[in-house]
Structure formats: structure tokens, C-alpha cells
């Protein structure tokens, strides 16, 4: 604290780059590469868990065009509940410390964005298009698979993207309950007062999130048929890992 951080700052930036440039910090079981892979593995698991719940429920509710109020209430509650609190609650039960409670907490917070966008995607399918599909003799499941889901895909993809970036942003909290991923670089650095490492860890986590956001934005664009590509800016997405 205090102690003239202005004087220290140049050496901290230097320390961070030295640390990031040391190949020894990248290799091995505790190297940056391994930690990044662990981070991504935990994130993918959390997103899959959340998708397994959110997508079917979202499709079902959206098709029925009901349950919108419940979806909104869920999203609002999840915004008010700190992820950190749920993580600690999980970690103090038989779920145990480490990666498991983190993946579970991240998955739970990934449900609302995916659920609400899947719901909105199916709800907003033009009634006329749906009626036309039924009128052509398509059964309900066929209409859903061939007409409604393709039309809802851009919004569903947007929800998955939001949720994924949010999960990658949440996983660093694992470090506070003895888990892995990139978070421990920051937390260990703070505990040992090696601020160069703290800065390097922060840069790595932020970089990973920005990279994921960019890649997913591109993927989402590819999934959207050209005619449906609008330039309407979406709502600000929460990925700060609160």
C-alpha cells in the first residue's frame, strides 16, 4: 500500500513483461499454457452445463410464448446475487473446494443470459411464418427444427456468446477457493506482494476474455444469414464476473 506507488510503477510494468517473457513461466504443469487450457476447460464445462438447462427450457418457453415474466425475474435476481457469494456457499458444502464449485457457480450464472435470449429468439419468430409452416403440413417438431430454430439462431448464438465470455470472466474467482485456471496467478501474486505477476495475470485474464469475445463475435456473425445481419447495438453485456 502507499509507499510511493508512483516510483514503483515503472518497475512493476517491467516486472510484468519480464515475467510474461520468461519461457519458464509458460511451460510445465503450472505454466501459463497449462493454466490457460485449464481455464478454458472449466469454462467450456460450465457453458455446456448451463446450455443443457437453458436451451431446452428457453426453446420450450419461447415456443409457448409464455413465462417471460419468470425469465426476467430470474435475470434480475441473478444480477443482484454476487457470484462470489454463491461460489463460497457451494465451496462450504460437500461440493468441496477448487474447480468444482467454481464451474457450478459459473454455470448457474450463465443460465439467465442464454435462457432469455433463446426465449426471445423463439418468441419473436413471425407468427405468419409459423402459420405458413404449419399450413404447409409441417408437424410442430418439424416446424421447430426447420423454420423456427434457424430463425432464432442469431439470438441464441448471441446468448451463448454473452454467457461464454461471462463464464471466462468468472472462472478466475476459483483462485479464492483453491481452484485453478489463470486466477491463481493474480491471487498468489497479491499474497506474495509480487505486483509484476499480479499485473501480468490481470493482462492475461483480460486478454483471454477479449480474445474469446472477438472469436465468438466472428462466429456469431458467420451463423447469422446475411439478410438478418443488423447493426443494432445490443444491450451492454455483463461479463464482469460479479
Amino acid at each position: 500500500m502507499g509507499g510511493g506507488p508512483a516510483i514503483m510503477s515503472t518497475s512493476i510494468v517491467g516486472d510484468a513483461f519480464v515475467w510474461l517473457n520468461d519461457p519458464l513461466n509458460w511451460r510445465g504443469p503450472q505454466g501459463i499454457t497449462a493454466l490457460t487450457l485449464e481455464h478454458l476447460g472449466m469454462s467450456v464445462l460450465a457453458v455446456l452445463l448451463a446450455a443443457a438447462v437453458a436451451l431446452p427450457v428457453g426453446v420450450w418457453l419461447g415456443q409457448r410464448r409464455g413465462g417471460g415474466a419468470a425469465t426476467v425475474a430470474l435475470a434480475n435476481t441473478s444480477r443482484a446475487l454476487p457470484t462470489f457469494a454463491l461460489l463460497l456457499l457451494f465451496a462450504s458444502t460437500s461440493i468441496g473446494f477448487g474447480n468444482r464449485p467454481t464451474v457450478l457457480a459459473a454455470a448457474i450464472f450463465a443460465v439467465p443470459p442464454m435462457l432469455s435470449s433463446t426465449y426471445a429468439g423463439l418468441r419473436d419468430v413471425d407468427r405468419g411464418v409459423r402459420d405458413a409452416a404449419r399450413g404447409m403440413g409441417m408437424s410442430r417438431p418439424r416446424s421447430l427444427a426447420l423454420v423456427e430454430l434457424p430463425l432464432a439462431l442469431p439470438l441464441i448464438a448471441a446468448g451463448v456468446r454473452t454467457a461464454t465470455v461471462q463464464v471466462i470472466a468468472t472462472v478466475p474467482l476459483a483462485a479464492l477457493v483453491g481452484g485453478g485456471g489463470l486466477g491463481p496467478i493474480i491471487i498468489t501474486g497479491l499474497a506474495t506482494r509480487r505486483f509484476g505477476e499480479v499485473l501480468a495475470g490481470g493482462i492475461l485474464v483480460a486478454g483471454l476474455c477479449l480474445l474469446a469475445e472477438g472469436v465468438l463475435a466472428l462466429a456469431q456473425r458467420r451463423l447469422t444469414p446475411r439478410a438478418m445481419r443488423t447493426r443494432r447495438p445490443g444491450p451492454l453485456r455483463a461479463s464482469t464476473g460479479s
Partner: protein
Amino acid sequence: MDARSWAEAPPVANPWFSWSYVEANRADIAEALGQHLTLTVQAVLVAFAVALPLAALVHGRPRLAAAVLGVSGVLYTVPSVALFAILAPFTGIGRTTVLIGLVGYALLVLVRHVLVGLEGVDPGVVDAARGLGYGRMRMLVTVELPNALPSVVVGLRLATVTTVALVTIGVVVGYGGLGQLMYRGFNSAYRAEIVTATVLCLVIAFAADLLLALAGRLATPWAAGRRS
């Protein structure tokens, strides 16, 4: 107590909630609660004070507005843990770092909502005011901002609720308000402490949301019928 009776003693009670904990630690809880509340209020107020002029400045300049929205969207992707880690080496461990981070995130939410509100004002209304001879400043203060108020209130509610939750991440730099209690409860394996702090967090968030919603309703009586 000798070693044998320790081994035979029943497991220590670890309730999810305990009034005796709350009563015995009232001062501690009040301190964390105060830290949490002041951080939230300060962050939202500072962010609002910056967001309002910033949005007014870029409003009416589409290219600048698009740039502000784009940059704020990208910055919002940076996780709070990473932001605190990037700030901590320069601003130290403690309140300053947390406050800067909170102001940043609240600012991104607020700028966007104020801007959306300003852009959404009925062009006919703006035209009418201009026809009446309103200058740019008078237009902004007496016509555009009041019309943008519903969106501004939505932004304030969102920013406040997310800030309340975000304060807990301040634990990373040792200044997390109620998050500090949660973390202590976790480290001492005492569930009641975690649950108490969590419930207080939720209460603050919902109370603040309700208060702001009510204030917004009072400030925009004309919108009451439309909203219903």
C-alpha cells in the same frame, strides 16, 4: 479437554444461519455493511456525474457516439478480477482500487443508457422546441434530458444493482465490503457468516432497485399511464 474427549466430541455446529452470530458480531457486520453502502453510493454518483456530460457531449455526433458505445462494450468485457489486478500495482491495495473499478463499470452502463435515452427522444418534440427558439443547452436540460429520464432511470437501476454485487469482488484487493465477511466465513468454515452477508447484499440490491424505480416513477409522472 484432553485429546480423547476432543475426538469423541460431536462435530461443531455449522448452521446456515444464526441469530447469536449476528448479535455477537453486530459491530463487524455494520462496518462491512457501511463499507459496502458507501462504496456503492460513491461509485454510482461519481459515474453518473461523469456519464451525464459525456453522453450529452457525444449525443448528436453519431460517429463519436458509436465510438463511445463500441469502446464501452469492449471495456465491459474485461473481468473485474483482472481490472483490480491491473489497477492494484498502481493504486495499491484497498479502497481506491475498488472504487476506481466500480466507477468504471457503472460509467459504462450509465453512458450507454443516457445516450440511448437521448437518441430516443421524439424528433418532433425536439423540432418543436427548436421552432420555439430553444438553444442547445436549454434544449438539453429542459427537453431532451426529461424525455430521456425513463432510460436514465433504467441505467441507474442496472448500474446500482450490478455495483452492489461487484463490490464483493473487492475481496481480491482486501476491500470487499460484505464480501470481506463472506470470505472470512469461508476461510473459517462458518456458513452463517457467508449467508448473513449474502442476504444483506441481496437486501441492499433489491431495496436500492425499488427506491430508484419509485424515484423514477415520481420524476416521470407522464410516463405512468404508458408503463402500466
